[in-house]
């Protein structure tokens, strides 16, 4: 029987050792499951573990004669809105409690085709609606760097799992910042790919024109491997881009000489002093590596929150109509069909989800459609045009992910508008369908990590990964794993 060994720090190294037989997948999986058991009572990052399924797969991998796969034997945590055949998928909601999926999402099949082993389903804001991970029906997730703070949302469980070394890689989804915010707050890398890069098939839908799945990791190379594993055309999702094989890993380079980096100075001026210092230092580092910095203008940033919440809630009110107590999930009694719907939905959905369904239903209701939804879609085009104009002057844009580092639990949860305003720098990326990455660039004096937001043209994930790699190599003395808790 396998002995407990410390899991290798990174997926790249671990996969290589499992491929050549010097490390066992079973040991890697057991070590990961053990860490979850030890750390989860404090962090609440995981909703369910897939012990039996994971160990079965690990044993098959150890016995396999064909030993290739980008993530061969690597334990992976996935947000609980990805369907994994035979296991519970809750999307952080009471309404889906006990729902066991009879198929796997395309991205899960792809991860597994590369040898990855899904070990657990991560906690999340209910239906991915939140920026702090305080909206989960399974309780708030804690930040591994400081348990009094939020991990960010909505992929907070995924970020906390990677930051606390439960697994080297996790998958999240990002509708308005849900990968990048928790990556920033938890000191890990998080990539939100271009809309259409990654299949949405088998992922619980929130807002279909904005949702995109992506990886989180503790190194750029791991992030690239995980992204390459899941990206590419899927005939089950007609919004996926036609390119089938995506390979950023073999093209990774930290040579960024001549890259033009766009900066909106007012965005950096607006953030908390600690964040500002680290962001400025990171930009200076990029300059010293041969990049040039150009001032750009993104004229509709201030409007992006309004546009985003109007469009996201409208799409959500339609997507969440399927939770009616009939075909799956929680059912409450009702004398008529309408009563059954109303009671089941009233019982199953949490307050933030109800609030957003109400807002979206209002925006789409007769007499308000033009003033709200249509107007928002028009400004959405202006936001996209604004990015296109900016990218004529630069190859990528860098700036803040949020206005501060992780805030205290419950500090903002009573004020929905204040919480929404937190997403000012992330939502416009989803509205324009662009790829963006949050890269950890340092720890502030109070011990909380800070991320840098990198944004590129559609389908240019490569430049994001390359620039993030150059920072990873160049920034001195920064311990990137939040393995502070052992």
């Amino acid at each position, binding site marked *: 029987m396998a002995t407990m060994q410390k899991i290798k720090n990174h997926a790249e190294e671990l996969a290589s050792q499992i491929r050549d037989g010097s490390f066992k997948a079973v040991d890697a999986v057991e070590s990961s499951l053990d860490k979850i058991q030890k750390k989860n009572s404090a962090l609440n990052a995981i909703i369910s573990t897939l012990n039996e399924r994971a160990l079965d797969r690990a044993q098959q991998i150890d016995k396999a004669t064909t030993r290739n796969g980008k993530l061969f034997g690597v334990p992976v945590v996935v947000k609980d809105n990805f369907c994994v055949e035979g296991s519970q998928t809750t999307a952080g909601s009471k309404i889906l409690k006990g729902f066991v999926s*009879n*198929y796997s999402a395309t991205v899960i099949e792809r991860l597994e085709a590369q040898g990855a082993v899904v070990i657990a389903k991560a906690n999340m804001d209910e239906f991915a609606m939140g920026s702090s991970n305080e909206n989960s029906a399974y309780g708030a997730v804690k930040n591994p760097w400081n348990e009094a703070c939020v991990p960010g949302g909505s992929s907070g469980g995924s970020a906390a799992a990677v930051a606390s070394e439960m697994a080297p890689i996790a998958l999240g989804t990002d509708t308005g910042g849900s990968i990048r915010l928790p990556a920033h707050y938890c000191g890990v890398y998080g990539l939100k790919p*271009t*809309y*259409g890069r990654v299949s949405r098939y088998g992922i619980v839908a929130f807002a279909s*024109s904005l949702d995109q799945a992506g990886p989180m990791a503790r190194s750029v190379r791991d992030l690239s491997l995980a992204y390459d594993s899941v990206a590419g*055309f899927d*005939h089950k999702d*007609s*919004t*996926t*881009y*036609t390119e089938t094989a995506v390979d950023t890993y073999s093209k990774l380079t930290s040579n960024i000489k001549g890259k033009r980096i766009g900066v909106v100075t007012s965005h950096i001026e607006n953030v908390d002093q600690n964040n500002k210092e680290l962001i400025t230092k990171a930009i200076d580092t990029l300059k010293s590596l041969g990049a040039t910095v150009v001032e750009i203008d993104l004229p*509709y940033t201030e*409007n992006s*929150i*309004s546009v985003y*919440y109007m469009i996201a809630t409208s799409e959500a009110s339609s997507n969440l*109509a399927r939770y*009616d*107590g*009939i*075909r*799956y*999930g929680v*059912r409450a009694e*009702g004398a*008529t*069909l*309408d009563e*059954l719907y*109303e*009671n089941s*939905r*009233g*019982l199953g959905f949490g307050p933030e989800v*109800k*609030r957003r*369904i*109400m*807002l979206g*239903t*209002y925006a789409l*209701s007769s007499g308000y459609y033009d003033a*709200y939804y*249509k*107007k*928002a*879609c*028009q*400004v*959405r*085009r*202006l936001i*996209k045009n604004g990015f296109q104009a900016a990218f004529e002057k630069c190859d990528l844009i860098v700036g803040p992910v949020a206005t501060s580092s992780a805030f205290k639990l419950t500090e903002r949860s009573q004020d*929905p*508008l204040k919480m*929404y305003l937190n997403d000012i720098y992330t939502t416009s990326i989803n509205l324009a*369908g*662009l790829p963006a990455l949050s890269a950890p660039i340092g720890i502030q004096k109070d011990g909380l990590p800070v991320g840098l937001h990198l944004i590129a043209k559609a389908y240019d994930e490569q430049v994001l990964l390359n620039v993030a790699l150059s920072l990873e190599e160049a920034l001195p003395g920064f311990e990137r794993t939040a393995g502070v808790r052992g």
Partner: protein
Amino acid sequence: MISSETVKHVAKLARLKVSDNEVNEYSKQLSRVLEHFESLKAVNTEGVEPLVTPNPASEYRRVDEVVPSKEANTWISHSPDKIGNLVKVPTVVG
């Protein structure tokens, strides 16, 4: 300001049961959020085509052919109330 009546009407449209407390709360919170949206009115969007999806979808159309799929009972099994392969619901036509 979103009135209690409007909140109740929208809840009905959304098939959501809401308590009196929730009606009061949503009335206040949604009003505040919608006030924020008013800032959009200042943006000139005359002649701007609404953007409903960010990147053009692929031209792909799958071939219309029969492929194996899961048995019906694996889908019906999710339902909280069923008889055999049928989902049970309250009487619809009296």
